[in-house]
C-alpha cells in the first residue's frame, strides 16, 4: 500500500486528528466516557494505520522495538509507582487520598496518573503485538 498517493495523503491528514482524539479521550475520561484504556487503543490503532500505509519499516523507525519495550514497562511501573507513593505518604497501597491535603483532589490526581499509565502500556502493547505479527510475514 506504500504507493497509493490518496491513502498516503489521507493518512497524513488524519493522523493528527486521531492522535489528538486519543489524547482527548485520555484526559477527558474523568468527565465523559473514555479513559486510559480506550485512549491507548485509539493511539495504537492510529499508529497501526500509519504502519499499514507507510510500511512497517518506517513505522519501526518512529517506534523502535527497544523504546516500545521500555514504554510497556513504564506504564505499568507508573501505575504501581502511584500505589507505592500512597504507601510512602502514609496511606494504604493505591490510596490517592494522601496525595493532597484535600482527599478529593488527591484522588483526582491519582486517577489522572494511573489512567496515564494505563494508556501508555496499552498503546505500546498494541503496537508491539502488531509489529510482531506483521514481522512474521510470508516473505
Amino acid at each position, binding site marked *: 500500500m506504500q504507493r497509493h498517493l490518496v491513502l498516503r495523503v489521507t493518512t497524513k491528514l488524519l493522523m493528527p486528528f486521531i492522535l489528538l482524539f486519543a489524547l482527548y479521550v485520555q484526559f477527558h475520561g474523568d468527565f465523559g466516557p473514555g479513559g486510559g484504556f480506550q485512549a491507548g487503543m485509539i493511539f495504537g490503532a492510529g499508529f497501526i494505520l500509519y504502519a499499514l500505509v507507510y510500511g512497517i519499516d518506517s513505522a519501526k523507525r518512529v517506534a523502535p522495538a527497544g523504546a516500545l*519495550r*521500555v514504554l*510497556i*514497562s*513504564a506504564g*505499568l*511501573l507508573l501505575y*504501581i509507582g502511584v*500505589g*507505592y507513593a*500512597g*504507601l510512602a505518604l502514609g*496511606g*494504604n*497501597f*493505591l*490510596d*490517592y*487520598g494522601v496525595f493532597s491535603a484535600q482527599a478529593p483532589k488527591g484522588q483526582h490526581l491519582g486517577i489522572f496518573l494511573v489512567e496515564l499509565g494505563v494508556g501508555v502500556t496499552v498503546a505500546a502493547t498494541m503496537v508491539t503485538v502488531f509489529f510482531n505479527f506483521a514481522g512474521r510475514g510470508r516473505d
Partner: protein
Amino acid sequence: MIAAHLPALQIVVPLVSAPLCLLLRRGDLAWALALAASWAALGCAALLLQQVLSTGPISYQLGGWAPPWGIEYRIDVVNGFVLLIVAAIGAVVLPYARVSIAHELPEDQHAAFYTALMLCLTGLLGVTITGDAFNLFVFLEISSLSSYVLIALGRDRRALTAAFQYLVMGTIGATFIVIGVGLLYMATGTLNMLDLAERLPPMAESRTVLAAFAFLTVGAGLKLALFPLHFWLPNAYAYAPSVVTAFLAATATKVSIYILLRFFFTVFGTAYSLELVTLENLLIPLGVAAILVCSTVAIFQTNVKRMLAYSSVAQVGYMVLGIGFASTTGLTAGLVHLFNHAMTKGGLFLALGCMVLRLGSVQLDSLAGLGRRMPLTMFAFVVGGLSLIGVPLTAGFISKWVLVQAALEQGNWFVAGVVLVGSLLAIVYVWRVIEAAYFRPAPGGDPAAPNAAAPGGEIVEAPLSMLIPTWILIGASIYFGIHTSLTLGVAERAARFLLGGGA
C-alpha cells in the same frame, strides 16, 4: 509501618519486579532481581502466616476504601498456609532456574522469561490472598496467561499445541468463574467474599445461587484438573520447560484447590455446600476415579514427565477426597497433602529437570544406567518417589495416613481401600523408573540419545545450583514426614477454621 502493609507488599513486590526484569534486558540481572523478589515474597508470606497464627485474620483495604466498596485482602490461616507454599516453591525454583533456563532457552529470551515467571507467581499469590471475588478472576488470568506463555516455550513443538489447548480450556474455566461471580453478584449485590457469605444464607433456595455454585465448581474444576476435566494437564506438564513444569505442578493446581475450598466453605458456607447440595456425593466418586484411572494411565507412560503429570491428576484426587469427607480430619488431610505434594512433586520435577539438562530427554529408555552416572539426582528421585507412594517416614505417608483415618471415621472402607490401591499403583510406576535407572546397563555411546549436550557420551552430575534446590524440596518431603507439628498443626487449624462457620 512495613508490617501493616505486608499484605499489599506480598503481591506488589513480585509484581513490580516483572516490568523491571523486562527493562534490565540482561538475563542474569533479571534473574538476580527475580530471585530477590521471590525471596522477599517468601519472607512476607512467612511473616503473614506468623501474624495470622498469633492474632487472627488480617484485613487490608486496598486504596483505603472500606469493603465492600473497595477491594479487600483478607488473610486467614487457610490462605496464609497456601501463600507460604506458593512463595516457598517460587523461592526454591528460582535459583534452580538460571542454569536450567540457560540450557533450554535462547539467551535473548531470558529477561522476558523471568518477567513471565514473576507475573505467574504474582498471579498465583494474588488469587490466594484476595478477599474479593472479581479480583480473584483478574489475578487468576494473570497467572493463567503467563503460564500459557511459559508452557509454550518448551522445546518440543507439542508444547505449542499443549499451551493452546490449555488456553482454550483455561479461558472456558475462567469465563465460567466470571459467570458464577456474576450470578452471585446479581443475587446479592456485592463482590466481597465475607459480605457474600453473610448475604447468601437467606437465599439458599434461590436457583440463581445454585447455578452460580455449579458454574464456580466447574470453572475451578477445569483449572485444577479435576478428574474428567484434566485433559489439558499431562501435555502441558510434559512439554513445558523443566522449571516451569516444576513450578506449575507444585503451585497452580494447589491454588485452584484453594479457590474451590474458599468458595465451598467461606462463600457458600459449609451448610450450603454440604447439606443442601451434598457435594460429597460428587467429590468422592470423582476423587476415587481420578486416583484409579490416572494412576493406571501413568504406569503406561514412557515419558517420565508425562508419567508424573498423570500422577499429579491422581494426587489431586486425594485432595478432592479429603475435601469431600468434609470432616475436620478430611480437610486436614486435603490441606496437608496440598503442602506435602507440592514439596514432593516439585522436587521430583526438579530432579527430572536435572536429567533433561544432562540427557536432553526423559524417556524411560534414555534413563538406563543413570543411577550410577547421576547418583545424587537419581537418589533424589527415588526419595521423592517413596514420598509419592506414601512410605512411612516420608511426607506422603502422613497425608495418606490422615486421609485413611478420615475415611475410617466415616466407616468408608471402600475409600480407604482405594487410597491403598493408589499407593500400590504408584509403586508400579515409580518402580519402572528405578528399574531403568539402576538395573539396566548404561548404553555405551548411545546413538539413540537425541541430544548432543553430553559430548563423548560422558554424563555427569547436575550442577550444584540445580541439585541444592532439588534436595531442599526432597529434604522437605522427608523432614515433614518426621516433624509433622508445623504442617499438621497448621492444616488442622485451617480445617477447623473452614468448618467453623468460615467467617
